[in-house]
């Protein structure tokens, strides 16, 4: 059953002087209940705009937005409020209340929801404990570091245990460990409470850790949607491929390659890793058979939805003819090998 559905949504912003920015261009997505849906794309692609349409903070220029069985775009502001109470939102710029303490910020949505004081205090304490800010409960936001502010925003969005969570770059200011902790929490609320999550990020880890499906946005359009594995293993659009290359970091960039060359005299090839049993053994056997020494000097293999994806860059040393033969053998075998030139 679909929890969030955008049908042919276009959103343009006026920039004055009759000029317009098309932030979203005929976007349709469908997020199932209980799903974790990732949205990725370059800066300015329209990700934040998309998420803001879902809880009606912004109205589409054209198109319809459904949340559950309600059409947000058709609701009165009053009815929209009821829908919003069941949606948590983590803002890209945090948007904390300066006039409230850390605890007050987290308590706010609970107050709005009419949760009584004792219960409120209990939940606030639990959430702050989780995000590691219990000892800062009575500080005001301007006293916090960037990451601490973001954690307050996360706690606030989760306070009412909403059934839908909109997270706009929820971990962008967090160090890797805190990010992992937050993602683990998101994974848990998703699995245990069945919370649907729409999650914008530019970090692969985030997608990998929690997303089921992912949409790649490019210039206001959805370039590609699919399971995380499909999009990352076989990006079909350049926008997706671009993002995936940057995110997986499994292929050396031109600069890295240049540096690798300085310390590695052999020939350098990159092999795309496929999730196929015996793949590595075949690789090793082939190289050994040709008396080629193959050292992995770069690469990354990630687990996406329980399958391996990535690539490895080898430095091959040995007889030039043998190397060519080994590569030819691999290619015949269906392995995706690229020799890094230049």
């Amino acid at each position, binding site marked *: 059953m679909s929890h969030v559905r955008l049908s042919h949504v276009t959103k343009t912003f006026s920039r004055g002087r009759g000029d317009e920015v098309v932030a979203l261009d005929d976007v349709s997505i469908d997020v199932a209940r209980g799903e974790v849906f990732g949205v990725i794309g370059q800066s300015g692609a329209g990700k934040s705009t998309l998420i803001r349409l879902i809880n009606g*903070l912004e109205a589409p220029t054209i198109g319809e937005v459904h949340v559950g069985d309600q059409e947000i775009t058709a609701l009165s502001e009053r009815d929209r409020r009821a829908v919003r109470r069941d949606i948590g939102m983590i803002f890209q710029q945090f*948007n904390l209340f300066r006039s409230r303490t850390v605890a007050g910020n987290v308590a706010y949505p609970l107050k709005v929801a009419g949760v009584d004081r004792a219960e409120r205090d209990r939940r606030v304490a639990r959430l702050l404990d989780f995000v590691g800010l219990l000892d800062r409960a009575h500080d005001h936001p*301007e006293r916090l570091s960037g990451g601490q502010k973001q954690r307050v925003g996360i706690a606030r969005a989760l306070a009412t245990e909403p059934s839908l969570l909109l997270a706009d770059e929820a971990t962008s200011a967090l160090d890797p460990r805190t990010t992992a902790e937050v993602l683990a929490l998101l994974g848990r609320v998703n699995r245990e409470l069945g919370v649907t999550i729409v999650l914008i990020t530019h970090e692969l880890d985030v997608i990998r850790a929690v997303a089921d499906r992912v949409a790649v946005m490019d210039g206001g359009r959805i370039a590609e949607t699919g399971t995380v594995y499909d999009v990352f293993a076989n990006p079909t659009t350049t926008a997706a491929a671009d993002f995936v290359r940057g995110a997986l970091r499994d292929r050396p960039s031109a600069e890295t390659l240049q540096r690798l060359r300085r310390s590695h005299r052999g020939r350098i090839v990159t092999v795309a890793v496929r999730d196929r049993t015996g793949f590595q053994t075949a690789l090793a056997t082939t190289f050994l058979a040709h008396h080629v020494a193959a050292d992995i000097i770069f690469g990354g293999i990630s687990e996406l939805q329980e399958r391996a994806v990535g690539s490895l860059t080898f430095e091959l040393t040995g007889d030039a003819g043998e190397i060519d033969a080994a590569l030819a053998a691999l290619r015949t075998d269906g392995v995706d090998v690229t020799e890094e030139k230049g």
Partner: protein
Amino acid sequence: MDEFLSNLPVFREAIGQTFYIVAISVVVGGLLGLALGLVLYATRPGSLMADRAVFIAVNILVNVVRPIPFVIFLTAIQPLMLVAIGTTIGTNAVTFALSLAAAFAVSRIIEQNLLAVEPGVIEAARAAGARPISILLTVVVPEALGPVILGYTFIFVGVVDMSAQAGLFGGGGLGDFAVTYGSQRYNWPVVYITVATIIVIVQAGQFAGNYLARRALRR
């Protein structure tokens, strides 16, 4: 000086009247003005309860009332006063008129200060599903609290100043005392002492305002 001493009871009474007039006007005018200011803020195009018609109507109302010379304003609202408090002269009448006048001034101050609140925090409150009225009172006003407190302090000083016109209508107060027993009689010591008293009251108010604003701003 002698004359001042002989007028001491009147002076004491004037202080009492000033406190009475100012306190009630600031509280009543402050609350009414807050309400009007919230309407001005919330109904402006693009705001929380944007409503062009209401915005224009309230805007015009405020602009119609504010610039009317106080003497004429007082005369104009006499029918209203008679209904509300049964008299058009004396301390209560002046307090009534000042409360109204203060309310219209407060509304503009509130409007200004609320406009500086960052839209992001309002969005956060909207996203939580809060009602506009609750957002206004529990988010927008608190976010602007420092400047709002200074705004009220400003109005407080303005009301103390305006209360000097209370004498026109038999309202008494320190301003009236300074004029009738002082400047009208060219009796400067009376003026000095009275004005000094007014200034002390104002300084105390401003001090309290600054202190509270500093606490609200936390800087």
